[in-house]
């Protein structure tokens, strides 16, 4: 599996670099403008940005027939799927790392950091990143990668939708529907992780039955 993960990272290498650059540029905004709101948004997006490109990456795998060639390797189909999910986790970790760096820089520059705001950013960012990946991959496995941009888009939307839904459900506990409430952030993230795990098992099943021409 290590080889497969290595391959996934290699094949996304330029996308990862690009994401880093965008994240770095984005980090400049709150630093320059010293705006709290901006920082919160930026942190969330930085977590999400690394997984955004997986759609295109999967598309390229399909057109080059690597996804078919993979099956001739001495690996089980479920190992292939597992390697993909490990790669997703690595990408999300990269996002977290970048945002932590941004946070560290901002705080070193003397910006005031509101812990509630930070918790909210991470809750939102992680939920967005984890949920959209969890939704996107099995969908692409099932219906193909031609409409990958749309799928990524809708997965992102769905992620936001889920957060709103949870906020609504938790309203009684949070004095009215409050997205920024730490409880909402925590519950969303946990829900996202659960979805991610379920998504893995669903993907294994879909992949096992899938035919590759």
């Amino acid at each position, binding site marked *: 599996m290590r080889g497969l993960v*290595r*391959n996934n990272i290699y094949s996304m290498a330029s996308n990862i670099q690009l994401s880093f650059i965008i994240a770095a540029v984005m980090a400049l905004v709150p630093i320059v403008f010293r705006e709290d709101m901006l920082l919160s948004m930026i942190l969330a997006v930085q977590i999400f940005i690394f997984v955004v490109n997986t759609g295109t990456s999967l598309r390229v795998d399909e057109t080059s027939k690597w996804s*078919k060639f993979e*099956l*001739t390797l001495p690996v089980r189909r479920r190992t292939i799927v597992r390697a993909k999910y490990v790669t997703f986790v690595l990408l999300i970790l990269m996002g977290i790392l970048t945002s932590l760096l941004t946070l560290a820089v901002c705080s070193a520059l003397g910006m005031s950091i509101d812990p509630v705001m930070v918790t909210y950013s991470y809750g939102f960012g992680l939920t967005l990143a984890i949920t959209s990946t969890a939704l996107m991959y099995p969908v692409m496995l099932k219906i193909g990668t031609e409409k990958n941009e749309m799928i990524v888009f809708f997965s992102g939307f769905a992620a936001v939708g889920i957060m709103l839904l949870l906020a609504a459900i938790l309203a009684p506990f949070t004095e009215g529907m409050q997205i920024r409430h730490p409880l909402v952030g925590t519950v969303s993230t946990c829900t996202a992780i659960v979805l991610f795990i379920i998504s893995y098992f669903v993907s294994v099943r879909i992949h096992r039955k899938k035919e590759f021409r």
Partner: protein
Amino acid sequence: MIYSLEVSNLSKRYPGATFSLDNVSFAVPQGSIMGFVGENGAGKTTTINCILNTLKPDSGVIKIFGEEMTEARTDIRNHIGVVFDAINFPETLTANRLASVFKDIYHHWDSDLFRQLIDRLKVPADVRIKDLSRGMTMKLATAAAFSHGARLLILDEPTSGLDPVVREEMLDLFLEFVENEEHSILMSSHITSDLEKVADYITFIHNGKIMLTEEKDALLYQYGIARCRSEQFQALDKSEYLAARKRGLQIDVLVPEKQRFSGQHRDITVDNATIDEIMVLLVKGDQ
């Protein structure tokens, strides 16, 4: 006779399509090169996909090295080298990176051999695959297929789109591969001249059915194409030929035993057969 690959009664129907594989059976003897010939859409790629488990057959048994190949048998796949008619690998990788990936995946990856083959085939090691020409990509894929202890190579159009110089290099590689008598190759190809050079056996497929499996030398030197007039053709017995086809003002007839046929029909011209002509006859003729 030991067979590296045995395909028995393979059938596959695509839902909603007219195309299907119908009872495909053939076997590749150990130590040989088998050419797999058929027109576009005849079922070559589908057959190969079924053999490699990227497609699920409706019925049939596939044995590689005497054992049934299932998804779980990763051990067998360590010894099968594959080249598809595509880019095969992620485009952003270089040959070197690909080698590091394969080192972690195959149990018997031979880095030195891979390096030697890349050098010999003049494939640049640090250029991204998307920047390589098609010929280079195929050479790279072939080098990889050779470098992990494979005993069976399954190649889908490995020389198509390549210039004659590169093709000859590839054919040499294939012959080198079978210098070890435990190694075998199944290769599908349109370039019948390549097969006429190096193949030991040829299997013809048409419309999802196997038409013929035969030794290449037999096809070239024992089979013949008889050129008949109508009355001559009518006088033939069905058991004397495999296929016949009206072409212009004559009827071309595929006969499996040129000498005997000539002996019994001294008035009919019998030409030597080429793989191309045999294929066209099998495809266009009535059985």
